[in-house]
């Protein structure tokens, strides 16, 4: 019997047939490979959050191999000399060991911390993008709600993780957290003593935070992120308006290969930036803070940035205590309002916003086209108001540092924050609203009169006028005015956006050749002379 020759080249094909025989994946796979994604730089902000989360998982798993989540008192005998012989919790000692006695442990710890900060920052910026462009409108309200939940779950993940090392700074933060729980009317003391297993600090809180931080919260995050991405996939991404783009289609690139390559490359870039930050920029040097001792604190003790707005609201809150004179008397402490009620209101308002706006505008349609912020002045102004509110609170979270560095009275900073919190948001609303209207007007002006050319012409009667380049062929009007409608996308306002400049010369040291003007592969058109001509763009800016 003759042995059949082994044909190496045919193997992948055969294997593929074998797989498809069993799983029937060829057509679904083609659909996946072909799925079209619209492209715009602002769509990548959420990706940063996703990629940071992946880095968090990777570095976090590493840290769990060395971290000991226990509050057992030990005497430190690691290599960091200044703390040798100090009694401390096992959690803090093992965090010091990660920093000093585990090879490469510090870079991992710092990458984990930076990735967490970046994760939260990317979530916030992504949320702003979605808000200001109206991407949250029907049919995407669910994803907006999941997104706002992701912020708060991420907040919890950050806070529990920040507390784990049990250092002087995080212990103070935990103390404040216990006071916040304690301030809840009626059930406060029960909640606190149940969570802490008795009076603060007890001996169990670090182990409980640990399991929350490494299992429960990440599990919840993974679940929410999966649904979030699944919905983006199912509902298809929104896109900016533009030529050929309608509410009913997606104009962009197929997922493979170009879009997927860009995503993969972007992930590596995010990962790389986190690695650089983790190595080069010190974050949370816990060995300088010492172990947590209930009687030690220093000025300028700020939490991580995403907690600062709550710290600020706590600082600005006037000392309004509500006493209820029944029986022995009951108290609602002032701490309750800025730390429990305010976040509650913020969660409620942010999750309900899509419905509130739709109700206000009586809008029941599905929207797949984004809106430029200037075209929706009221929403943009409301967003600016929220941002102003948030910024005042966050700055107030560090008002003691500002007072110190700029030699301002601390009390003046507090009062500035209190007044600013009331004044800045309405001001931001008004200014933003006017800015939006101004920008709208200018768009219309350019559409009607054309782009300023910078060429001044003297008329026979001696007047000087600037020549405008109309955007469309003149429509019978003597002055060259055409009738161009606004389509909700960028109006060119500079001559070089119209192709008035020659094509850029490519090449770093010397110009490289011009592309050959011939079609090379079947299905390709002859390359036209002007690659800058207006075609259906991919949404990338041509600047």
């Amino acid at each position, binding site marked *: 019997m003759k042995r059949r020759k082994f044909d190496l080249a045919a193997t992948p094909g055969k294997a593929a047939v074998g797989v498809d025989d069993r799983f029937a994946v060829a057509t679904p796979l*083609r659909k996946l490979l*072909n799925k*079209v994604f619209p492209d715009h730089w602002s769509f990548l902000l959420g990706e940063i959050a996703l990629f940071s989360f992946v880095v968090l998982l990777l570095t976090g798993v590493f840290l769990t191999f060395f971290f000991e989540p226990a509050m057992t008192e030990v005497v430190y005998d690691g290599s960091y*000399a200044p703390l040798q012989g100090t009694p401390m919790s096992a959690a803090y000692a093992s965090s010091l060991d990660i920093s000093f006695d585990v*090879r490469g442990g510090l*870079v991992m710890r710092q990458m984990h911390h930076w990735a967490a900060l970046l994760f939260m920052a990317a979530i916030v910026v992504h949320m702003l993008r979605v808000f200001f462009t109206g991407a949250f409108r029907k049919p995407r309200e669910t994803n907006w709600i999941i997104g706002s939940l992701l912020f708060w779950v991420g907040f919890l993940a950050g806070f529990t993780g920040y507390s784990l090392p049990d250092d002087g700074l995080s212990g*103070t933060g935990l103390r404040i957290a*216990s006071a*916040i729980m304690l*301030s809840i009317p009626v059930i406060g*003391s029960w909640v*606190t003593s149940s*969570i802490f*297993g008795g*009076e603060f*600090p007890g001996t169990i809180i670090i182990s409980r935070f640990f399991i929350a931080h490494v299992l429960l919260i990440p599990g919840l995050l993974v679940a929410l992120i999966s649904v979030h991405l699944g919905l983006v996939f199912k509902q*298809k991404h929104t896109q900016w308006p533009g030529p050929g783009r309608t509410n*009913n*289609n*997606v*104009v962009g*690139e197929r997922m493979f290969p*170009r879009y997927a*390559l860009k995503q*993969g*490359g972007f*992930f*590596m*870039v995010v*990962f*790389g930036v986190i690695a*650089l930050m983790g*190595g*080069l920029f010190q974050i949370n040097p816990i060995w300088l803070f010492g172990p947590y001792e*209930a*009687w030690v*604190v220093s000025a300028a*003790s700020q939490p991580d940035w995403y907690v600062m707005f709550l710290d600020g609201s*706590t*600082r*600005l*809150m006037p*000392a309004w*205590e509500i006493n209820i004179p029944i029986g*022995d008397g009951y*108290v*609602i*402490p*002032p*701490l309750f309002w800025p730390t429990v009620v305010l976040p509650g209101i913020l969660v409620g308002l942010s999750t309900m916003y899509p419905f509130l706006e739709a109700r206000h505008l009586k809008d029941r349609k599905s929207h797949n086209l984004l809106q430029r912020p200037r075209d929706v002045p009221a929403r943009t102004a409301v967003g600016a108001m929220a941002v102003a509110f948030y910024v005042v609170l966050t700055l107030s979270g560090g008002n003691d540092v500002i007072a110190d560095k700029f030699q301002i009275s601390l009390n003046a900073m*507090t009062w500035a924050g209190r007044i600013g919190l009331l004044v800045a948001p309405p001001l931001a609303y008004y200014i933003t609203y006017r800015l939006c209207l101004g920008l709208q007007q200018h768009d219309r002006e350019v559409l009607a009169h054309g782009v300023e050319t910078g060429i001044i012409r003297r008329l026979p009667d001696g007047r000087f006028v600037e020549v405008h380049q109309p955007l469309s062929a003149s429509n019978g009007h003597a002055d060259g005015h055409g009738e161009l409608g606004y389509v909700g996308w960028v109006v060119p306002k500079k001559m070089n956006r119209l192709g008035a400049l020659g094509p850029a010369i490519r090449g770093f040291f010397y110009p490289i*050749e011009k*592309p050959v003007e*011939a079609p090379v592969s*079947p*299905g390709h058109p002859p*390359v036209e002379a002007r690659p800058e001509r207006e075609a*259906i*763009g*991919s949404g990338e800016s041509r600047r």
Partner: protein
Amino acid sequence: MSTHTEHQAPQGQEPLDVNDPKLTRFDIVREGARRDDIEIVHYEPQVLPGTKAERRLARVVAGFFLITGLAATAFLAIYIWWPWKYEPGRGGDKFYTPLLGLTLGVALLGIGFGILTWGKKLLPKEVSIQDRHEGAVDEEGRTITGQTMLYMADELGVKRRPLLGISLLAGLAPVAAVAAAPLVGGLISHPHKNNQMFTTGFHAAEGGERIRLVREDGRPVRPADISSGGQLTVFPGIEHGVSNRHADSPTLLIHLRDSDAQASRRANERIGHGDYMWGNYAAFSKVCTHAGCPASLFEQQTNRLLCPCHQSQFLITDNARPVFGPASRRLPQLPIEVDSEGFFVAKSDYTETVGPDFWERP
């Protein structure tokens, strides 16, 4: 504007025969896309094969990947051979973490930029249009699914046999509680066990000795230990008194100047705390009544105590009344005196609740 080849099938025509040998691979790709309601309307190479530009880009991409290789190798070399153990002073270990981060970061950025250049510059630019099928609501499908679900409900027959539904609810409700019970029951802890929220480490046992005020190292404190205008953090002189087990006990012992002490005593008398001070010495809880941070920044000139967490300020000479910031309650004062051996002792425990406020605080 768009790529029209002679092979292209106009909209609505029969699908192409993909086994037609005349078709190019791109034709088949386009046909596949079309079957997914995707029209590739524009497909244009950015660099042409064999050109200088293509070779140059390929070199750039290869360069990035080689940088990755170099940086990753450097990472490994540093990881293995660089002195990394902590030494006090300016040891080489100071550069260990930065070098690891730098080499790892450069390695990852090399891959990233390599892939990005490959994808963005070398691959053809394309514009595809995919139909969303928005608005084309499948009314018939909705009806069928709705009827199927209602039919399922009919089959179960809960409407006809209400007993089933009621008994199911009655049976399952306790099961849900059973699931929650161990969690709630295990976690719950009575907040007022041993009256813990209203006592501190200064709470002397029945008929026991008065508790001394001790320093952080456990030594008791004499009046002469604190100069006028000075202050000292003191703890209950009991086992574990200087530890987080008595997180509510740290106390600030202040030696007031004469005039301030008089003002302070007058303020004490106003609220019936006439005997809380000893001489010019007064002791206040260090735990802020706002959020529990140690209110530890004492400003001698104004006799104000500032909490660094939220900037509440307490005026020591007026019973530590909050004068600024979010705190609403004064710092409790510890009644003190000096025992026969000349050391400070607490006359009794705090007479007001120490620490952050809560609902049932009387």
